[in-house]
């Protein structure tokens, strides 16, 4: 029986159809994935179901009855809960207070904190969701915060829980835990909708999948009857190369070493974030850095881009030591930087696209003479980059924040690759971008490699590392604990190495 049925839903923002005649139904007790690229209308559809926005046409039935969901409160009363991508939690309050917010248990006219704690402990027991109700939100990790949101939905007696991109913020381990929780909830009779664009996760956890493309319904499939390639094609609307393909190969050992880090040590808050790290990247090589986030990747990136200064050790560019590295010096030495977080480091969101395309290179003669900007050249250059990199923009004078995530990333990448760098530091180059853009960015990086550039690729996506890298170095505790050809690694072995089970291997000298 269909628990929720959305028929012929349309929603327009101005002249843009976020949803156009979408049909979507969920059966009771299933895990249903809602798949689509960024901007395909997944979130809009779910916001409609959760009452956060109203459809322009179409009908919704819940439990066989036609309903009007005017606001989230209506949705909650119908047993629908939603876990947003950006958690809606009050950081200084406790877990318990956050969960019961709006539906507080009372003792007389006062808030019954102990009662709330008890209820939450009961819920947590029942569904196997471990949590400390007395902990403050600001003190718990992201995975736990998500758990708080899920318990909040359960506390409000939700039968259907919608999760918006739940794995975007989680580490690989936390993802597995989350999936365990979701399967548990399913067994307890709850219905789950996951909004996602990650194919692997769908295959792993969901029973059925509905695909949206450009606001339109494509199809609904049983997960068992499909495969990632088919899903990718349905989502993008054309053939895409699968990530399983590998573009790595042998590196010419006689090629010059473009970038070298020697024995780098860096401390932050008395913790050694880099602990004697060394690596080399040759011309025509992609070296992939693999590791669990927080093992020194950020500091490695910031070292080779001149943002931080090492306590010990050195950085060499084309064999020469860089004395007193600064971001400007590294840029001028031909080290291009694709920052790991485009919002905080990569782009200035209120600046026009044009200014963002030259940031870091604006002092070059091409763009300025004696401190005066060459506006005509800037216009031409930005326009050219927009065309070369297929960036979808209204105009180059629009603020860069008006672009979609994928197009913003293309600006970052276009900027880094257009000034003929020798060395490219590509940190999370495809984070938060849709499949079409991922494919494009990968092609660009491979093209750069073929031109003889040295590329240091830092990525949290093991698939990406395996597909692109010639060599892989595993980082753990601020050191490279294993290094070798990409073909020598598989996911299992990398998983062991990056969680610190590889030390023995290194000491025994197998690599």
């Amino acid at each position, binding site marked *: 029986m269909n628990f929720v049925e959305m028929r012929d839903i349309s929603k327009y923002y101005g002249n843009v159809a976020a949803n156009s005649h979408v049909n979507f139904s969920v059966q009771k007790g299933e895990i249903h994935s809602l798949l689509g690229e960024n901007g395909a209308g997944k979130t809009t559809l779910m916001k409609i179901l959760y009452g956060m926005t109203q459809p322009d046409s179409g009908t919704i039935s819940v439990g066989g009855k036609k309903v009007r969901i005017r606001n989230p409160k209506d949705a909650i009363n119908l047993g629908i809960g939603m876990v947003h991508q950006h958690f809606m939690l009050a950081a200084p309050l406790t877990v318990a207070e956050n969960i019961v917010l709006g539906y507080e248990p009372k003792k007389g006219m006062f808030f019954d904190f102990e009662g709330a704690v008890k209820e939450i402990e009961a819920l947590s027991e029942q569904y196997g969701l471990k949590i400390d109700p007395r902990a403050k939100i600001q003190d718990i990790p992201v995975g736990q915060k998500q758990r708080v949101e899920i318990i909040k939905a359960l506390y409000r007696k939700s039968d259907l829980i919608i999760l918006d991109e739940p794995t975007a913020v989680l580490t690989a381990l936390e993802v597995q835990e989350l999936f365990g929780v979701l399967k548990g909830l399913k067994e307890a009779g709850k219905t789950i909708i996951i909004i996602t664009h990650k194919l692997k996760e769908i295959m792993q956890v969901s029973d059925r999948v509905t695909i949206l493309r450009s606001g339109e319904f494509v199809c609904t499939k049983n997960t068992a009857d499909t495969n990632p390639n088919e899903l990718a094609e349905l989502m993008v609307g054309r053939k895409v190369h699968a990530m399983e393909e590998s573009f790595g190969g042998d590196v010419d050992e006689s090629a010059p070493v473009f970038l070298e880090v020697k024995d780098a040590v860096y401390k932050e808050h008395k913790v050694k974030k880099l602990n004697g790290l060394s690596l080399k990247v040759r011309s025509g090589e992609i070296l992939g850095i693999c590791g669990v986030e927080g093992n020194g990747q950020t500091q490695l990136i910031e070292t080779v881009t001149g*943002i931080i200064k090492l306590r010990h050790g050195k950085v060499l560019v084309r064999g020469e030591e860089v004395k007193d590295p600064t*971001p400007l010096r590294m840029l001028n030495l031909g080290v291009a930087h694709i920052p790991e977080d485009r919002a*905080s480091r*990569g782009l*200035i969101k209120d600046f026009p696209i044009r200014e963002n395309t030259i*940031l870091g290179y604006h002092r070059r003669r091409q763009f300025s003479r004696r*401190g*005066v*900007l060459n506006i005509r050249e800037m216009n031409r250059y930005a326009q050219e980059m927009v065309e070369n990199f297929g960036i979808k923009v209204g105009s180059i004078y629009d603020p860069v924040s008006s672009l979609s995530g994928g197009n913003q990333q293309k600006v970052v990448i276009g900027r880094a690759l257009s000034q003929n760098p020798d060395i490219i530091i590509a940190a999370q180059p495809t984070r938060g971008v849709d499949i079409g853009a991922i494919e494009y960015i990968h092609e660009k990086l491979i093209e750069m490699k073929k031109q003889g550039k040295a590329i240091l690729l830092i990525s949290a996506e093991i698939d990406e590392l395996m597909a692109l890298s010639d060599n892989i170095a595993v980082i753990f505790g601020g050191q490279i604990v294993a290094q070798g050809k990409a073909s020598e690694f598989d996911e299992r072995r990398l998983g062991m190495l990056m969680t610190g089970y590889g030390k023995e291997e290194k000491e025994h000298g197998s690599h």
Partner: protein
Amino acid sequence: MEAIKKCGVYLRQKIKQLFTSKSFIVSAISLLLALIVSGIILAFSGYNPFTAYVNMFGGAFGDMSRVADTLGIATPLILCGTAVAIAMRGGAINIGAEGQLYVGAMAAALTGIFCQGLPAILHIPLCILAAAVAGGLWAGLAGYLKIKLKVNEVVLTIMLNYIAIYLTDYIVTYGVKAEGMVVKTPNVAESAILPALYPHSRLTIGFILAVIIVFVVRWMMKKTVFGLELQAIGNNLAAAETGGVNIGKQFLVTMFISGALAGLAGAVEVMGVHKYFIKGFSPGYGYDGLSIAVLGQNSPVGVLVSAILYGALRSGAQVMDRMTKIPSDFVGLMQALIIIFVATPGIIMAMRNFARRGKKNHD
């Protein structure tokens, strides 16, 4: 200590919010709303708002001498407003324009008094330069402490205001006081006096200087590497750093320029209006600079327009005070209302949406 620090950070955020992301419409409507609400308050206080406004307008623009006065009062306001705006664009919050103005004024006065025998064509630029450097260094001090010791510049510049005002007080009282009861310096040399553009008014070539500066700043923001880097820092510090901008140096230069402009405002007052430094000469031009920058949304031309408006309010109020029974302090109320409305764009956006919806229903 921790509490003070937190307070500083909070202040910084709030001030930044106040200054950013407004549209021209918000400013214009705020102005209109302030006029209406002030009018209602006047009516309730038993005055006729229409005669008040007519008098005020006449006082500001009634004849050439009134216009000259308006622009004369606007001159230091333009400079202080630009000073605040440029700092704001560069991510620095300069609440210290008032102090920088006093320091600049004193520097101009001393240069004007003690460098005798120069021709005006040298003496005037010299005094102006002295004022700019003094104001710049005063603000630069705050910038330096911010970079080196991470002291919040909001708190710093506020504190430096008091130091500047009392320091110049001290200098004028115990150092270079002129004969007589009034606490002021002797007159500056004839060669250091800014030529008036309209006889017996406050309007001097200082106004032209201020307008030129506005357009130079505008050009600098739009067309130079310096302006690009300044605004990069103001918008996203980490991205500016990644883009190779020398954050510390740029921040220091931003503060220096901001202070220099406020210092110039002091010079214009001393060399054009008073001809000497007098204790407490500023009716808060530096602080008005803050609200002018808010109203002008940190755009140089916006500041120019807002400053002339403030000048008109002030000079109009003087006339209104004489012609009606309404005290000129009433202008303070109007200015406060303008800022309240600009600071709460929510009110205006809600009104706009309401109006739009109304229109839609009629379609």
